[in-house]
């Protein structure tokens, strides 16, 4: 069976198994659980104590709690990844055996945070060496050991980029003569015009 929220592939076996665990808690509690999982997916952190309290009635062990959080994260992030609308998601979840109230609750939470989730996923997409900041300085060289009267301006550029490890940053310092700098600026302006044409 092909499901849109799994990217037109079969639903993974573990998701099928955990949907029956999800049905054990009430639909109100499940909606609150979805809110917590969405907070985690949006990078705001998850409050495990609250999750524990919500699942305490159904007497979930720690393994069940982890499984519930994992299956909700998978369903919500996968649906956002493949841009599934909430009615299709609701009907597909009901096909998998999730009761109707649970499916409607989940899809309502999904619909509210659908755009925010997609923006967050877009931000965390693979980017090689993101540029963090640029700082510059213009100097005027008066004289040097090679030539007594130089009298030339010089541009120093400092580029901060994110390194390959998360949280590390690399610094590149370049000094450019005026002619080369004019060439660089013209080329970058052409690239910018092309980018604007695409927007």
């Amino acid at each position, binding site marked *: 069976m092909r499901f849109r929220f799994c990217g037109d592939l079969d639903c993974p076996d573990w998701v099928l198994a955990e949907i029956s665990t999800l049905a054990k808690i009430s639909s109100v509690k499940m909606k609150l659980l979805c809110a917590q999982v969405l907070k985690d997916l949006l990078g705001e952190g998850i409050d495990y104590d609250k999750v524990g309290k919500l699942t305490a009635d159904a007497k979930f062990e720690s393994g069940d709690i982890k499984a519930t959080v994992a299956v909700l994260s998978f369903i919500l992030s996968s649906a956002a990844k493949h841009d599934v609308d909430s009615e299709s998601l609701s009907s597909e979840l009901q096909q998998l055996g999730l009761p109707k109230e649970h499916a409607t609750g989940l899809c309502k939470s999904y619909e509210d945070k659908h755009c925010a989730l997609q923006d967050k996923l877009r931000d965390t*997409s*693979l980017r*090689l060496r993101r540029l963090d900041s640029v700082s510059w300085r213009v100097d005027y060289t008066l004289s040097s050991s090679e030539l007594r009267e130089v009298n030339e301006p010089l541009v120093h550029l400092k580029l901060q980029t994110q390194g390959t490890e998360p949280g590390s940053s690399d610094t590149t310092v370049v000094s450019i003569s005026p002619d080369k700098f004019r060439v660089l600026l013209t*080329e970058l302006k052409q690239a910018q015009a*092309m980018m604007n044409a695409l927007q």
Partner: protein
Amino acid sequence: MLLVLSEDHKEHLSFLTKADGSVVEEFGRLALEFLRKGTNPKIYEGAARKLCVPVGMVQHGVEGLMFLMTESSKHMISEVDFMDSVLALGFGEELIQSLLQLYVQHKHQIRSILSQLLCNQPAYHNLEWRLDVQLASRSVRHQMVPMVTIRLLLTRSSDVGSTQSCMDLQTDPSSLLHMISTLEAALAAVKTSDARRILRNIK
């Protein structure tokens, strides 16, 4: 098979043969903690003071016991062989029994710890990808070049824990298709009759 232990090793363990059961059990526990977390000199000093022996002897005793356990677990020797090897070292009957209990209880744990020590190759951890289309470059405008950028995250476990490394790769769609078909052929090789025959014999 019987364990063959060096003379130094036998000397280190000779101190334990004269000790009584509770001491040997305590030393066994210390040896297993050593395997899991490393040594703690304060514990050795405390034990040495209680038994009125030099600290070096306590340390050698624990290390000797730990080596005995790891060698036994490494070769997966049977209980009978273990008892015979320990008998050859000069241990008394009840000490042999307590050492046997220690070995049987912790054999699998020790084997799993030992297997973690030996992974030298970086192993696959995660794969991130993006699909781009290059529309223009400095030299050529109005292009249409699709490219897939891949970041391969690898972990390598070593003495000090695991380190992560990442590798950035770029490929065009036809190379990607070729890569996919090669990898699928590799997966299909597991299902050939030759591979199945070998797996049956290993089981």
